[in-house]
């Protein structure tokens, strides 16, 4: 037997291999080889130590058995109570709630982005008279700005009747007639008097698609757009509208 072969014995399971120590061959080798003899002695001693530790392991205490049994019964009871309770009172898992909130937020963002991308917006030219935004108005409509300039800074009077105030009408005839309390041919969009509309008002010219106004596009309305003047209060809310022919 070589030293390597002897060491190989102990690479395996100690419980099995220590039985082989009685082999004559092993005994002969250990008698002549001092390091192997010492190694075998150490292994024997270790096996003895481990056996002592193994045997000295404490038994599972009865109190633990009782505790585990009690735990089981309370677990079953708790679960049955939970099953009886309504879904609203059930446990809410914070992670799941957070996940759902993130998913909803993501869906909202995607929906908003989709709307911005795929729903076309009408081309609107805004003419803020007296401001630096005049280049936005198409040149063809510049002449009409003089008329709208007159309507600028007009303090509106209280309308006589506002039965239809706040309602938009699609009838061009009504739009043309307008409310008499407003400057030239303006149609009232909401109730307006000295108290509710204090201060100067502003006229803004916009171009809207003719279907929005309830008009059919004609040759005069290029691209089916209609120009309209919007009377805007100092609070930014539109008070009246008129179609510009």
């Amino acid at each position, binding site marked *: 037997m070589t030293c390597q072969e002897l060491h190989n014995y102990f690479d395996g399971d100690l419980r099995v291999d220590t039985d082989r120590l009685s082999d004559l061959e092993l005994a002969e080798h250990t008698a002549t080889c001092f390091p192997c003899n010492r190694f075998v002695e150490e292994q024997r001693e270790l096996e003895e130590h481990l056996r002592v530790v193994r045997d000295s*392991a404490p038994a599972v205490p009865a109190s633990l058995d009782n505790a585990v049994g009690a735990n*089981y019964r309370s677990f079953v009871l708790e679960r049955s109570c939970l099953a009886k309770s309504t879904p609203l009172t059930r446990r809410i898992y914070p992670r799941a709630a957070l996940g759902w909130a993130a998913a909803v937020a993501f869906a909202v963002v995607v929906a908003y982005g989709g709307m911005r991308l795929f729903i076309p917006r009408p081309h609107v030219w805004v003419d803020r008279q007296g401001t630096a935004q005049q280049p936005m108005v198409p040149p063809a409509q510049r002449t009409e700005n003089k008329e709208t300039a007159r309507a600028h800074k007009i303090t509106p009077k209280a309308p006589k009747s506002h039965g239809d105030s706040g309602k938009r009408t699609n009838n061009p005839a009504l739009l043309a007639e307008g409310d008499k309390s407003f400057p030239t041919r303006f149609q009232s969009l909401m109730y307006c008097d000295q108290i509710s509309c204090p201060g100067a008002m502003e006229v803004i010219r916009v171009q809207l698609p003719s279907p929005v106004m309830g008009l059919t596009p004609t040759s005069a309305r290029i691209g089916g757009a209609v120009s309209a003047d919007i009377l805007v209060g100092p609070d930014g809310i539109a008070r009246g509208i008129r179609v510009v022919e």
Partner: protein
Amino acid sequence: MTDRLEGRSDAELLELSVAGEESAFLLLYERLKTSIFRYAFYMTNSKPAAEEVTQEVFISLLKDGERYRKARGDVAAFAFGIARNFVRRLQKRERVYQGLPTDEVLEKISASQAGTEGLSAQVIRNQGIERIRTAIASLPDHYRQVIVLCDLCELSYAEAACRLACAVGTVRSRLNRARALLVQKLKQSKKPQTELPAAGTEECLI
């Protein structure tokens, strides 16, 4: 009732336990408790800690029993995995308060053993056991695991490999190194303190 369940596998018992059958749970507990308790005891070197870990393991088995997959191993391995995690958690928690036993501690135990010739054999034996346990507890975690599983819990190499999720060869080599390290530690702890400590004269006067 228990006779009816006796022939059932651990997996079936776990399923019945989760469904609410107490006798199935108690039978499963009887089958697994010793190995789990011993493992926890050898790993923590503390009986109260072993009891705590064993309790936690069985509570977790009930709570997470539905997550058990038969294809990934037997219930004992599943329970052992839970126990291992609890032991680690416990050690991490306890590490704040106490360190692992060092060689100095072993030497102290050895010194106290050397001076107890007059005491009964039982006390000496207990001290010897404590010395070995402390030596095992001072091993690095991966070596301690194999010593505990193969030499103290008496699992086969294949079972230990399954529990530790590694190859049988890895278990064999780790065990070999762990035994060598343990022999070395025990040898060191056995050394008698021949030299007097370099302290003042007060120790000599006592």
